[in-house]
C-alpha cells in the first residue's frame, strides 16, 4: 500500500507550481496546515505520543514501595525470561501462517469461482460475507457451541461420519487450531471482496487473447489473473497481517490464552500483563517489541511483494 502511494504521489498531479507567485504558495501551505491540524492533534495524542510513552515506560523500572524510579533494560530481561511470552510469540507466528494462508487461498478461490454476476453467485457471496459483519465476540459466542464436545455443532455432525468426542478448546494441541478455524471463517469473506474488485479491473480482452492462443483455464489463472492481482494480494496480505496481530477478542471469550498458554497471543499477553497483573513495565516492553516486529515485517513483506509484482508485470 505504501509502495502504491509512493509511486502515485507526484505522477498523478504533475507540478503546477511553475511561475506561481511565492505568496500564493505560502497561503496554500498555511491552508494545508489548517486542514491537517485536527488529524495531526489526534494522531499525536493517540499514535505518536503513546509510542514515545511506551518506549519510556519499557525502560522505566519501578519497585513497589520505592518512590524513586530508575532506568534500565530490566523489563525486557523479565519479558524474555517469561516462558509465557515466548509461547505467545510462537503461537502468534503459527496463528499468522495458519490463518493467513488458508483464508487468502479460500478467498481467492471463491472470488474467481463466484465472479460472474449471477443471482446464484451473489447469494453464495452474501453467505460467505455475513461472518465479516459479525463482531468477533459474537462469533466467539457462537463457536462456544460449535466447539462444544459431544453435542456441539462440530461434534454432532462429525459423529454422523463416525468421529468421537473432541475437546476442541480443551486440548492444548488443538485449541490454537480451533481459533485458527474460527478466524478463517470470519475473515475469508472480507478478503474475497478485495479479490472480486481486483478481478473486475482485469481487462477481459486479455482472457480472450489467451483463449485464442489456446491457453486453458489454469494457464489463464496462472499467467493473467494471479500476476494482475499482485497489488490486491499485497494489500490483502497487509490487512490480514495487521488482523492477526490486533484481533484477540475470541481469545478473551473462548480460552483466555489457555489451556496452559497454548492459545496465548501477543496482544492478549499484553492485555493480561497490563489489565490483570498490573505489570505495566512488562506490558510496555512487549508492546515495544510487537510494534517493532509489526513495522519490520510489514516493510519486509511489502518489499518482497513489490519485487514480485514488478517481475511479473
Amino acid at each position, binding site marked *: 500500500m*505504501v509502495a502504491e502511494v509512493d509511486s502515485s504521489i507526484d505522477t498523478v498531479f504533475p507540478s503546477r507550481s511553475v511561475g506561481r507567485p511565492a505568496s500564493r504558495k505560502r497561503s496554500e501551505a498555511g491552508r494545508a496546515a489548517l486542514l491537517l491540524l485536527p488529524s495531526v492533534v489526534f494522531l499525536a495524542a493517540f499514535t505518536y505520543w503513546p509510542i514515545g510513552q511506551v518506549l519510556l515506560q519499557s525502560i522505566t523500572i519501578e519497585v513497589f514501595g520505592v518512590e524513586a524510579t530508575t532506568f534500565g533494560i530490566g523489563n525486557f530481561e523479565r519479558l524474555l525470561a517469561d516462558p509465557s511470552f515466548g509461547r505467545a510469540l510462537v503461537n502468534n507466528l503459527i496463528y499468522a501462517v495458519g490463518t493467513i494462508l488458508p483464508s487468502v487461498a479460500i478467498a481467492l478461490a471463491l472470488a474467481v469461482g463466484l465472479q460472474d454476476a449471477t443471482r446464484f453467485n451473489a447469494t453464495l457471496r452474501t453467505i460467505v460475507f455475513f461472518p465479516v459483519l459479525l463482531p468477533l465476540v459474537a462469533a466467539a459466542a457462537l463457536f462456544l457451541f460449535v466447539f462444544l464436545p459431544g453435542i456441539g455443532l462440530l461434534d454432532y455432525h462429525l459423529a454422523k461420519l463416525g468421529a468421537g468426542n473432541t475437546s476442541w478448546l480443551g486440548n492444548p494441541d488443538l485449541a490454537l487450531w480451533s481459533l485458527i478455524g474460527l478466524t478463517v471463517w470470519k475473515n475469508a469473506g472480507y478478503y474475497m471482496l478485495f479479490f472480486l474488485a481486483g478481478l473486475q479491473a482485469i481487462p477481459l480482452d486479455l482472457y480472450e487473447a489467451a483463449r485464442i492462443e489456446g491457453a486453458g483455464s489454469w494457464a489463464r489463472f496462472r499467467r493473467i489473473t494471479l500476476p494482475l492481482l499482485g497489488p490486491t494480494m499485497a494489500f490483502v496480505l497487509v490487512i490480514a497481517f495487521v488482523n492477526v496481530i490486533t484481533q484477540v477478542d475470541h481469545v478473551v471469550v473462548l480460552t483466555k490464552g489457555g489451556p496452559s498458554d497454548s492459545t496465548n497471543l501477543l496482544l492478549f499477553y499484553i492485555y493480561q500483563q497490563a489489565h490483570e497483573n498490573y505489570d505495566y513495565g512488562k506490558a510496555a516492553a512487549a508492546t515495544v517489541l510487537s510494534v517493532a516486529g509489526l513495522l519490520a515485517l510489514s516493510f519486509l513483506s511489502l518489499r518482497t511483494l513489490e519485487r514480485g509484482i514488478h517481475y511479473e508485470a
Partner: protein
Amino acid sequence: MRRANPAALLAVAALSAVVLVWSTPLLWMVIASFRPQNFGGLDMASLWPDFTPTLANFAEALESADFPLLYLNTLIVCAGTLAVQLATVTLAGYAFARLRFPGKELVFYAFLLQLMLVPPILIVPNLVTIVRLGLYDSLVGVMAPYFASAFGVFLMRQTFRTIPKDFEEAAIVDGATWWQLVWRVLVPLARPGMIAFGIVSVVSHWNEFLWPLMVISSPDNQTLTIGLASFTMGAESASQWGVIAAGTFLVAAPLLTAFALFQRQFVNSFLFSGVK
C-alpha cells in the same frame, strides 16, 4: 466458462460445498434461537427446524442483559466516532489531494503509520493517556483514539482525486471562496467516499471489544460486545445455548439487517475502501 463441462460443474459443486459449511454457524444461530428451551437436548446442534418457533430465548436474553442501554451506548460510540472522523478525514484528505506544501510526502507517510500502528496495539499507553485526560470509564474515552483515521484520510484523498478539477475551476471562476468550494462542491461530490468510509467505520466500532473492555468499568457505560461477552459467560455455565444464540442474534442483527437492505452499498464500500 458457460459450457457445462465436467470440470466447471465440479468447481461449482466444490464452491457450493464450501459455502454450505460456511453458512452452518449462522444458520444454527437462527434455528437455535427460536427453538423451545426444553426441546432438543442432545439434538441441540440439529439444523433441522422441526419445532414450533418461540421467542422464549429472546425474552430470557433481554431479561439477563440491559440490551436497550447496550444498543444506545454502542450507537453513541459509533455515531460520535464517525462524526468527528468525517470532519478530520475530509479536511486532511482534501489537503493531500489538492494542496501543495513542503514536506507533503513525509507528512503523508507519518499519517500512514497509523495503518500499521492501529490503536489496538497501543492499548497500554493509550489507557494511561485516557486516564490522565479524565476520560476513563466514559464513552468519549472509547472513541477518542479513533478520531483521526489514516485509512479515512487515504480514502478521502483518493476520492477527491477522482473529482475532475473542472468543477473546482468553474466554482472559482464564479467567485466561490475555498471553503465554499469544499462544502458546496467537493463534499457533495465526495459523498460516495464518505459513505464508504462511514460503513467501514461503523462496522468496526460496532464490533470492537478489547479497547472498550479496558476503558469501561461501570455497567452503565458498557457497549454491546462487552455486554454480550459477560452475558455469554453466565449463560454458558448454565448451558443455555438457545439463549446465547438469541443474544448473539440480537447483537449481530442490526448490521446483518443493514447489510441485507443495502447490500450493494455495503459491498461497494468495502471494495472502495481497499483497492482504489
